[in-house]
């Protein structure tokens, strides 16, 4: 069981602040954040860094997906925290800061110091990854709970992602292991304190 993030029981400002923070960070570093990447980033934050925003992810053919993340992104957009444009050349969305992005970060700012280090690492490790690369890695982390034996895990991932070769899956698995993502995904929960 993960540690629940402290949250306003009436309005999940922390969730909105998290989304706004991702959008702000990617924009500030000149990187592109798409809808798929946002889903996978939040999944990795929950599963590999053990910060629970109460998002429930399900595995689809396109990797872990949570309808509440999609819904919250729409709400953030409605509040003016995000602008969402479709890039026809890339075939994906691009999320940019809206006029209220900093207001949303402020409203849920109590949580940001606690997760800042994790976000730094996540963005440094995978901020420039493609949606396809992120999807493979998040699927590996998702399935690591099924089987931690590396050969079995590669086989399990290939069952779901047959368009990746065994070598590609193994390389991604090794990278996640070296960066600590797989190990942390099975660690005990951490204790959190926030500014709230």
């Amino acid at each position, binding site marked *: 069981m993960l540690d629940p993030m402290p949250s306003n029981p009436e309005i999940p400002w922390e969730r909105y602040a998290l989304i706004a923070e991702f959008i702000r960070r990617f924009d500030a570093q000149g990187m592109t954040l798409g809808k798929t990447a946002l889903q996978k980033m939040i999944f990795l934050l929950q599963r590999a860094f053990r910060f629970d925003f109460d998002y429930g992810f399900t595995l689809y*053919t396109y990797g872990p997906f949570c309808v509440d993340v999609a819904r919250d992104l729409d709400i953030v957009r409605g509040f003016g925290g995000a602008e969402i444009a479709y890039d026809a050349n890339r075939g994906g969305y691009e999320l940019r800061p809206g006029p209220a992005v900093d207001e949303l970060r402020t409203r849920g700012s109590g949580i940001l110091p606690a997760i800042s280090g994790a976000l730094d690492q996540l963005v440094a490790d995978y901020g420039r990854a493609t949606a396809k690369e992120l999807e493979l890695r998040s699927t590996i982390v998702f399935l690591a709970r*099924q089987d931690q034996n590396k050969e079995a895990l590669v086989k399990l991932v290939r069952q779901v992602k047959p*368009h990746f070769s065994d070598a590609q899956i193994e390389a991604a698995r090794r990278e996640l292991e070296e960066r600590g993502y797989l190990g942390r995904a099975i660690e005990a929960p951490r204790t959190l304190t926030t500014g709230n």
Partner: protein
Amino acid sequence: MAGSDKIVRVPIHGFVKLSPWEQDVIDHRVFQRLRHVRQLALTEMVYPGACHSRFEHSLGVMQVASMMFDQLRPQLETSGQLEPRFSKDDLEKARVIVRLSALLHDVGHCPFSHAGEDVMPTNPLRGKKHKHEDYSAALIRHCMGDVIDGHPANELKVSADEICTFLQNDGSLPLQLLFWRPLITGQMDADRADYLLRDSHHAGVAYGQYDINRLVATLRVVRDRETENLMIGIETGGIQAVEGLILARYMMFIQVYFHHTRRAYDRHVTGVLGHLLAQEYGDRYGARGTFPPPSGDEVRTAVQNLDEFLRWTDPRVWQAIENDSAGPHGVLIKSRHHDRRVHETSHFPSTPELDHFYEVALPKLRTMGGYVDKADNSWYKFDKSADIRVATSDRGIDPAPVPLSERSSLVRALEEVTQRRVYVPWASKEKAKRALRP
């Protein structure tokens, strides 16, 4: 025991054909119980016709899931480029699993469906409350093996465990099955496709209507450009059908599922169930006032708990309400003195409007027993599904689909409903209104 196919007439879809195996599954006591669990809890207090059951809906979901499967299957069969191939055997078995999963997906509902889920016990593995899906899976696994694994017509060796895995999706499904899962839970799934039409039909409102036949006929297998994954999308000619589905979802949410009186009754149902469960079991299952869990230290205990759970149906609860033994919330239901909505935000409140709601209006009402209900808490959410993929080519597996929101300004313009309301007890209604006057 070979019998013959039968047809049963189900509102919305007309004749639904059932194999002898499916007839035996339907005749099982776990499925028959769904005759006594209403689809929409006490929605009948607002829309008197909304008395239909989960039994009828489950037959409808199986029918729609089959229609969708049969539309998509030839597209996979005729494509030579797929890796891995969807073999004939894979597809035959997948169809059986999809039909049985659709039929059985709701067997774990408690009395009054979603309204009773607040009194489900905590799952110790997740630290969160069990959901009806947990009960569905446990009932299929522990109580229905005789009509699934052991059925003489089960030539493809489908197991109850496989159906549970398909419904719960723990990550171990191969692509040949995972591909079909959006038919059970996804943006255009058979569950929603059926209940919008069915709930609309029985409630006597026109809001849930859309062109289901066009929707099904225009389903397409697509390959996402960004991630190269196979997905279920729609042809360009189906855009209006999907827009109709999404508008139906929006209208039904506003007018039926999130109706202010219906939501008040949901809360009273939760109160009644908590009272009855506390009376019946005390703290036998840990927390007081919860259903027996869908698990146990061993299979025998799990089965005992599930047998106990199966005894809970709508008529049993209604009888307690009629006998005045359902606690204070039962009295409120019987007298129709349900809690009253006295204040609410717009459907899409801005941040200043939310600030006013919580900082100005709500404090005036807290002392009167006021409480907040919000759209996010509703079991039925409006989900605008802007990311459904639209095919851009005429045939085959489409390699360059675009998101629906890029082709539909209507979908692009819709916002998530985040309305908040304050309710007070019936007796405090006038006092609350006076307190809110400027």
